[in-house]
């Protein structure tokens, strides 16, 4: 969910502080893709090579799709060295809806996408598992996934996939309120503080994050959301937009604007804020007292690939706390793997400092304030989406 706004994928990239750094990697991935895809087509023999892998011949390969800025180069090298599997890693996901639109034509006909693994946010995972029939994803290979035991207990049984049969978190994050204390003039602790603060304020185009925080502020639970229960939240949001208390909806664009002082406050994702606060101590992050959102981006294996075992081996690698720590040090989102904090401490240096950063390693108190937006069935989801788009002015 690093850059999940519904508009232009290019724009998402631009607004990222580390865009330039990544651009090279992305370009590399794009250039390499056709060649590696061609190579993938050739070797159908690796369906038999389940299990450890053990650095054998270079014929095993995987094609993984992920969000921008969700990978560390070191991890890619380590994975190759440890398993001998060649990975065609593409940062080609910028937006859940957009990626869904891209893969929909193939998956709806039961065909593959040419990719062996992908990472999508909870609700999109739920759509691929529950809303479309039969599911557009395949179960993970339990035999190849011994490290699944390291999944944090709090994340083990979401409603959309109670046994984590299809989807396991790649990274987790919080949605709360980021604000520039210089502009707001005071700390922000509640949604009302946010709405009444002076200056320009934005919320997220991601429906569940924005509506979820409004629902919680109105005392409505989000674990099992219904459209009728969400009405007051939608009305409050609509009113705030019409009264000019919310100036706009955006994705990651808030990152630069907050740092520059063009925005006073914004609904924001923890990982982004972790990166801004490093350079700008005036920017702070708060989970509203009534509650903030907890979300995960989940690794899944689409239908149409016969490399379930290898793809599971990939995610198994990142569920080793040591490897998860290397990844977390780079991407600064909350890791779903237990024991990462210890490993970060063991790494020393900047990585060790992250342990004290509540945006990367949340405290128990803040975890108490976080809620996961429950599953919506297709009809309900459509109603939510329609109403939200209306408030955005596009529906």
């Amino acid at each position, binding site marked *: 969910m690093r850059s999940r706004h*519904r508009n232009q994928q290019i724009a998402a990239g631009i607004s990222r502080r580390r865009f330039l750094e990544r651009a090279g990697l992305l370009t590399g991935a794009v250039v390499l893709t056709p060649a590696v895809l061609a190579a993938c087509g050739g070797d159908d023999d690796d369906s038999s090579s389940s299990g450890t892998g053990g650095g054998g011949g270079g014929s095993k390969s995987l094609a993984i799709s992920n969000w921008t800025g969700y990978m560390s180069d070191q991890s890619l090298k380590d994975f190759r060295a440890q398993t001998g599997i060649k990975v065609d890693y593409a940062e080609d996901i910028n937006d859940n809806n957009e990626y869904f639109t891209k893969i929909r034509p193939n998956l*709806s006909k039961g065909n593959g996408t040419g990719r062996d693994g992908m990472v999508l946010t909870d609700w999109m995972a739920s759509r691929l598992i529950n809303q479309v029939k039969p599911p557009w994803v395949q179960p993970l290979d339990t035999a190849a996934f011994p490290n699944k035991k390291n999944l944090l207990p709090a994340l083990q049984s979401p409603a959309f996939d109670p046994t984590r049969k299809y989807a396991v978190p790649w990274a987790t994050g919080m949605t709360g309120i980021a604000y520039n204390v210089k502009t707001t003039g005071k700390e922000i602790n509640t949604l009302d503080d946010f709405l009444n603060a002076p200056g320009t304020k934005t919320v997220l185009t991601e429906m569940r994050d924005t509506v979820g925080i409004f629902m919680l502020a109105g005392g409505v639970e989000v674990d099992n959301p219904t459209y009728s229960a969400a009405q007051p939240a939608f009305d409050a949001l609509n009113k705030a937009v019409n009264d000019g208390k919310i100036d706009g909806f955006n994705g990651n664009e808030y990152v630069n604007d907050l740092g520059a002082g063009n925005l006073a406050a914004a609904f924001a994702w923890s990982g982004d804020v972790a990166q801004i606060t490093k350079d700008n101590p005036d920017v702070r992050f708060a989970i509203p007292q009534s509650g903030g959102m907890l979300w995960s981006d989940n690794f899944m294996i689409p239908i149409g690939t016969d490399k379930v075992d290898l793809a599971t081996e990939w995610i198994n690698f990142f569920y080793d706390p040591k490897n998860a720590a290397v990844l977390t040090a780079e991407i600064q989102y909350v890791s779903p793997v237990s024991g990462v904090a210890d490993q970060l401490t063991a790494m020393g240096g900047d990585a060790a400092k992250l342990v004290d950063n509540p945006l990367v390693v949340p405290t128990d108190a803040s975890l108490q304030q976080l809620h996961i937006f429950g599953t919506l069935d297709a009809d309900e989801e459509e109603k939510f989406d329609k109403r939200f788009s209306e408030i955005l002015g596009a529906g």
Partner: protein
Amino acid sequence: VATAVAAPEAEPEAPKSRATVVERDDQGKRSGGFTPWLLLLPGMLWLLFFFFVPLWTLFRMSLSERVDRFSDPTFNWHWANYNEAFSQFGDQFYRSFVYAGSATVLALLIGYPLAYVIAFRGGRFRNVLLGLVVIPFFTNFLIRTLAWRTILGEQSWVTSLLRNVGILGDSSTLLRTPLAVIGGLTYNFLPFMVLPIYVALEKIDAGLIDAARDLYSTTWRAFRKVVLPMSLPGVFAGSLLVFIPAAGDFVNAYYLGNAHTTMIGNVVQDQFLVQGDYPVAAALSFVFMGIVMVLVTLYARILGTEDLT
């Protein structure tokens, strides 16, 4: 020797076939057999595959129905899509055409004098000046639009200047207003106005203006009676090149506007990417095309452009 003789003998064949064509064709086109058709072929195939086929697909999609949200829509003359497209998005249609119309007028007001000066007063700097018009557009469209967010934002000197002179209130900015969206559209499509007008003006024989002056015309009258009418094809082309893409644009409304400045492009994008409702998105596109066609026809009538284009 033999070849030299053979050649003239072969010649008469050709004029004969040409003559038959002339007989058949009243217009008196002097080209042989199916050569013109052959020359038309690539263009026609292009149109067929990249215009008519997609248009037909879009049309079928606009009359398709979804069983549930993510099933593939099936074609069954589902006119309700058009009903939805017409009835639910009136505001956005209205704003699209008002914003695009305003941007076109602004682009004309800025672009015509600019093109005029470059064409008639540019002298040896003509190409440099034209380059200056075009060069900013080497930068990506999106970057240019995002740059306006900074220029119009809270911390910019533009904002503080406007606040100091009292044009803007202390807590308001130009960003996220209709004015910002119209400004963005004008800025982004300005070269499409300047270049056609420049081409039209540049073709005008300076002698004609001198002739008007010789006949005791004032400068203004010479402009009105000679230059302006002759540049109208450029104005017409420029207006279309600005108006049509501006009306369909969604980037400016998204980045420079707010929830009350969305245009039809934003709706199509939302229907396509978020709601997953391809049929309604397709119907919206057709309604949009229909309105644009009507407006363009009206505009052509008003400007009397039958013999201009």
